[in-house]
């Protein structure tokens, strides 16, 4: 059965690639030197912390660490975090440069200079959580709308990562805990191409996606297919995917270390759209790319024969196989598509955070599971809808609960769905207990 037919899908895909590349070129034109939010990583010890105002992380704040024989300074990243490596275990003075705080914030509890002691541990934490500042003048509605937009942005990116997981589950029954690493892989591939090899970013990103696709191919060819043939049960496969996740995570850390790296152009200017909604240029590109990728994927799933075969297998694998579909071949393609989308979402996640870290994929793995479960394990469009809901939920929940608990909302949704409606929004009703 020849289902990789040449014809309309190929032309559509070409169009997608052109539009895609145009977006990337636009992105690549905004290049600025990477900002580090950590210094001195070559030392064995570190002083680190976060700067938050009323629970919201603040970037661009200058922190100085002074010790008996060493002084260093750093600027907080957009997630509010900073790290200064120190050579010896001594008492250090950590000073927050109040002039680099946003306007209107001045008083710090305990003062702007505080002492820390690297007693027994290699690292000591000094957080600056600033409570009272100026009254927030922005209305609740405006804030809500802003959060909604950020949530959609986050949700679109999450969606790209989620459909792959859902399809793999649908066609093979595997809950792939190593999916987060496929996300990280895409970001790291873009990093190596774009920063280390200094390939222009508008080439590096599609190349990273293609390399991710290859990675997905090798996962199925090298590991999952042989194991399926061996007849291992889904619980065994799940535990194996956990081992794989550990392995890949630490291999990535092996190569890029424990710090945060940035892709070129991560620091794009914010544009005030309306109300209090301010999106950066990167955010706009990200949303655009996500939508294009999702449309391309939707076309593939609905119109091409492989896409239809995928849906058939997800629905009823035995019947699909009995009607002549080459299940192995389709599953291989599903892995390729899944990994490509995950890799792309990894690049977008790198711009969103911003920053590439060895465990960035693991950070959102549970959110991806939440999205997939909410939408319905095994459905692709369900996963997208689930991702949007999770994204919006995570962002808007910070209006009601402390922002460092914002993932809790998504996790509660995940548990709730499995308890009360395990087939999710769009899944088939099947026995889950």
């Amino acid at each position, binding site marked *: 059965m020849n289902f990789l037919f040449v014809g309309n899908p190929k032309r559509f895909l070409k169009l997608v690639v052109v539009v895609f590349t145009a977006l990337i070129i636009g992105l690549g034109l905004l290049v600025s030197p990477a900002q580090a939010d950590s210094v001195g990583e070559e030392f064995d010890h570190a002083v680190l912390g976060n700067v938050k105002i009323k629970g919201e992380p603040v970037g661009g704040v200058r922190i100085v660490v002074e010790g008996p024989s060493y002084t260093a300074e750093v600027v907080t990243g957009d997630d509010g975090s900073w790290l200064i490596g120190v050579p010896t275990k001594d008492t250090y003075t950590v000073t927050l440069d109040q002039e680099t705080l946003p306007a209107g914030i001045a008083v710090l509890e305990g003062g702007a200079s505080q002492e820390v002691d690297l007693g027994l541990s290699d690292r000591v934490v000094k957080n600056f959580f600033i409570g009272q500042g100026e009254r927030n003048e922005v209305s609740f509605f405006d804030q809500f709308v802003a959060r909604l937009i950020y949530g959609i942005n986050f949700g679109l990116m999450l969606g790209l990562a989620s459909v792959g997981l859902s399809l793999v589950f649908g066609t093979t029954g595997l809950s792939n805990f190593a999916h987060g690493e496929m996300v990280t892989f895409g970001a790291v591939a873009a990093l190596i191409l774009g920063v280390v090899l200094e390939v222009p970013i508008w080439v590096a990103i599609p190349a990273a996606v293609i390399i991710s696709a290859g990675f997905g191919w090798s996962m199925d060819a090298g590991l999952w297919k042989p194991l399926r043939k061996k007849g291992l049960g889904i619980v065994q496969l799940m535990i194996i995917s956990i081992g794989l996740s550990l392995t890949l995570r630490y291999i990535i850390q092996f190569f890029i270390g424990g710090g945060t790296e940035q892709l070129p152009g991560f620091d794009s200017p914010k544009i005030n759209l309306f109300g209090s909604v301010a999106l950066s240029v990167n955010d706009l590109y990200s949303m655009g790319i996500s939508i294009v990728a999702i449309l391309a994927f939707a076309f593939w799933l609905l119109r091409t024969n492989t896409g239809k075969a995928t849906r058939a297998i997800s629905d009823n694998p035995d019947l699909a196989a009995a009607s002549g579909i080459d299940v192995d071949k389709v599953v291989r393609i599903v892995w390729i598509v899944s990994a490509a989308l995950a890799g792309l979402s990894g690049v977008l996640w790198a711009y969103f955070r911003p920053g590439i870290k060895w465990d960035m994929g693991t950070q959102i793995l549970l959110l991806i599971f939440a999205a997939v479960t909410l939408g319905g394990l095994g459905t692709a469009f369900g996963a997208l809808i689930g991702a949007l809901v999770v994204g919006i939920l995570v962002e808007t929940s910070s209006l009601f609960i*402390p922002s460092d608990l914002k993932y809790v909302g998504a996790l509660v949704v995940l548990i709730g769905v499995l308890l009360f409606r395990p087939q999710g929004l769009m899944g088939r009703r099947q026995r889950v207990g």
Partner: protein
Amino acid sequence: MDWGTIINNTLAGLLTPTTIAFALAALGLAMHFGFAGLLNFGIAGFMAIGAYGYAISVLTFGFPWWGGMIVGIIGSILFAILLGVPTLRLRGDYLAIVTIAAAEIVRLLFLTTAFTDVTGSADGLFGYNNSGGFTSANPFPPGSYGWGPWTYNSETLWVLTFGLGVLAVCVWFLWALMRSPWGRVIKGIREDEEAIRALGKNVFAYKLQALIIGGIFGGMGGIIYAAFANVSPGVYVTSITFFIWTSLLLGGAATIWGPVIGAVIFWTLQAFLSNILPELALAGILPVSGTQAATLRFVLVGIGLMLLVIYRPQGIFGDKRELTFVK
């Protein structure tokens, strides 16, 4: 290559409070998964609740150390009930996802700055062993005990003795339960709940009891860890759960001694690797940097877990015929 230090540190890893804490957690997981067939991927959550329950009762409420430990145990029981009542009817891999999510929620709640007065958020808690009197309860006079790689000061010796005592009690508990008719029902449930229901047993109650018992063991693991070090949310991440799973599967999931031996081997191997790998790097034998060498050992854990599940899922002591998750 400093072989002397390497061997010394490796052998020391055989008997440390961390090893005992892990053995307890693995024992709890043996009850959950090995015997009852429950895919609990939230064992780190039980450890966290045990540890924080102990530390918070001592620091915030002024409990004595043994009171704090009891609170930690009660916390584990409550968490088991809270987790179990709605979720025990879920299919295996769904239960895995729910338990991971639950443990993450627990960790995030301990990490959030909203409760920092009580939990210390990212900084964690320390000093409770002194204020609660655990260190004062030490019967061993100050000095150095043991010999060779197993030399301890009196404080560590106290934690070790206490921990070993708790471990012995828990091992006996598990053994006594599993050889009883209760244990028989649990093994039956692991394989086929419906058959057991058809014989008139209240399957849900048994599963909940197993979850509670295993949860108590896990909580005690967290308490022992806290009694030795400090309490920090960075410890109770999902990676810890995966390490405990590896220890359990290594020793033999459905055995009594498997989890203990598995944990000991796991931590001794970790001690060995964390010593030898950086040395190999420094000596230039491994073409990697010192920090990279440290990361390698976790890569090996991941690969080890995969190989274990593929080629020898019953571990060292287990019987392949007894495992339900092996098809």
